[in-house]
C-alpha cells in the first residue's frame, strides 16, 4: 500500500482528505499539521509522496520543499503542493516557480487528487 503524508495546518481539510484517500485511493495516509515536526513524521512514516500546503505558519511549503530536496533521505520523495493560493503571482511571492512544480488549487476534488497522486507515484 502506497503511503501519502499530508502536511497542512488546516486540520479539517487533512481529516477529510485522509479519509477520502484511504477509501478511494487505497492509500495509507498520515497527517502532519505542524510543518516544524514534518521531518520527524517523514522519518517515522517513510511516505511515497507528500501533499504539501504552501502558506503555513512558521515554515511555509516552499521552504520545506527546499529542505526536503537538500536532505538525502527525503530528496527522492515526490511532493505535490495543494494550496488555496490561486495566482502565479502569489505562488511566486511564496517563493515557488509555478512552472517547476505540480500545484493543485483548493478546493480539489478527491477524484482529481487520486489521479494526480497515482500519476506522480507511478
Amino acid at each position, binding site marked *: 500500500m502506497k503511503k501519502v503524508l499530508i502536511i497542512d495546518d*488546516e486540520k*479539517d*481539510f487533512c*481529516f*477529510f*482528505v485522509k*479519509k*477520502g484517500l484511504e*477509501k*478511494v485511493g487505497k492509500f495509507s495516509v498520515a497527517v502532519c499539521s505542524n510543518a516544524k515536526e514534518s521531518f520527524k513524521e517523514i522519518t517515522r512514516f517513510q511516505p511515497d509522496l507528500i501533499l504539501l500546503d504552501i*502558506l503555513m505558519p512558521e515554515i511555509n511549503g516552499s521552504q520545506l520543499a527546499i529542505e526536503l530536496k537538500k536532505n538525502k533521505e527525503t530528496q527522492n520523495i515526490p511532493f505535490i503542493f495543494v494550496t*488555496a*493560493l*490561486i*495566482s*502565479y*503571482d*502569489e505562488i511566486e511571492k511564496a517563493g515557488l516557480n509555478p512552472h517547476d512544480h505540480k500545484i493543485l*488549487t*483548493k*478546493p*480539489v*476534488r*478527491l477524484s482529481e487528487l487520486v489521479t494526480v497522486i497515482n500519476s506522480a507515484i507511478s
Partner: protein
Amino acid sequence: MPVKILIIDDEKDHAFLTKTILEQVDNNYQADFVSDSREGLKKAIEERPHVILCDYRMPDLTGLDVLRELRKAEIDIPFIVVTASGSEKVAVDFMKEGAYDYVVKDVAYGETLQAVIEKSLDKYRMKKDKERLETEVSEAYSKLKETQKELIQSEKLAALGTFSSGIAHEVKNPLAVILGGIEFLELTLSNASGDTKMAMTKIKEATLRADSIIQGLLKFAKPSEAEFTLLKPEDIINETLALMKYRCPLKNIEIKTEFDQDIGINADKNQIQQVLFNILMNAVESMPQGGTITITTGTWINDQNTGQSSCFIKIKDTGQGISQDMLPKLFEPFFTTKRDKKGTGLGLSIAKTILDNHNGNLLIESKISKGTEVRIILPLTRKNKE
C-alpha cells in the same frame, strides 16, 4: 501678412480717400471699398477681412444693420464705425451692439484711423487669446476630471485586486473543507436515501460554484500579466472548441467556422482562450434545444487614411437572445441572466477586461428569439498571404 480692410461707405469719394490714407499710413494695409451696404455685408461674410470700416448712415442697410447681421451670423470681425462729428451717441449705440471702436470724420480723421485700427486689432487678438485660453482651461479641466475618475477607478480596482486575493485564500480553505467533507459523506453514506444524496449533490455543486465565483472575481479584479505572442485566431478557436467539447458535450449544436487564414494577432493565448470560452459557453447555454454557432474571423480597415486594420472574431448563435434593456448591463460584474443555471455573472466582465488590456473591444448585438452576435475586436498584427 497684409491686414485686409473692408470699407463700406456709400460716399465713394470718402471711401476712396479712406483707402488712400490707409495705404499711405501703413503699406501692410490692403484696403478695399464697397459703396453698397448689402454688397458690403456679402463681401464681409464671404471674404472675412481683418477689419471692417463702416459708415453708419447708408441707404438700404445702415451700418448698424450690417453689424447686427454679422453678429447674427456669429462672425466676429473687428468692426469700426465711421461717424460724423458730433454723433458720439450713435457711436455708443454701435459699441453696445458689439462694434470694436468708432472714428469721427473730422480734420484728424487720417491721423486717428491707424491708431483705432491697431487698437481694434489688439482688442480682437486679446479676445481670441482669452477665448483660446478659456477653451484650453476647460479642456484641461475635463481631462483632469476624466483622469481623476480613471485614477479612482484604477485605485478601486487595485484595492479590489488585493482584497480579492486575501478573500480568495481565506474562502478557498473552508471551501476545501466543505468539498472534502461532502465527498467524505458521499463515500460514507453510499446507501443514503434519494433526498440525502440529492442534498449532498446540491452542497457539492454550490461549493464548486462558490469556488468558480472566487476564481472569476480574481480574474476580473486582478488579471494576470498578459504574455503577448503572435497567434493565428483559428488556432486558438480550434483549441478552445476542443476544450469545450471535453468540458461539456455539445448536444444538438452544430459549429460552423469560416476563417481568414492569413491574419495574425499579438495576444496572450490563455487569456484569449478564456474570452472565447466564456462567449462560447454563453452561446451553448442560450440554445438548450440545440442550434448553430457560426464562428467567423476576418479583418476590416478602421481608418482609410492610415490603413489601420483590426481583426474580428464573430461568434453568432441561434439561441434565445438577450432583451435590449439587458444589453447595457452585460459587462457589469455579477450581472447574470443565468442565476438558475449557476452563472456567476463574471464571464463577460472578465472577457471585456482582457480585451481592454489587449487594446481590443467586445461588441454584442442580440434579438430575442433570433440569437446573439458577439464580435471580439483585436488589433491586427499581420495580414499576408502565406
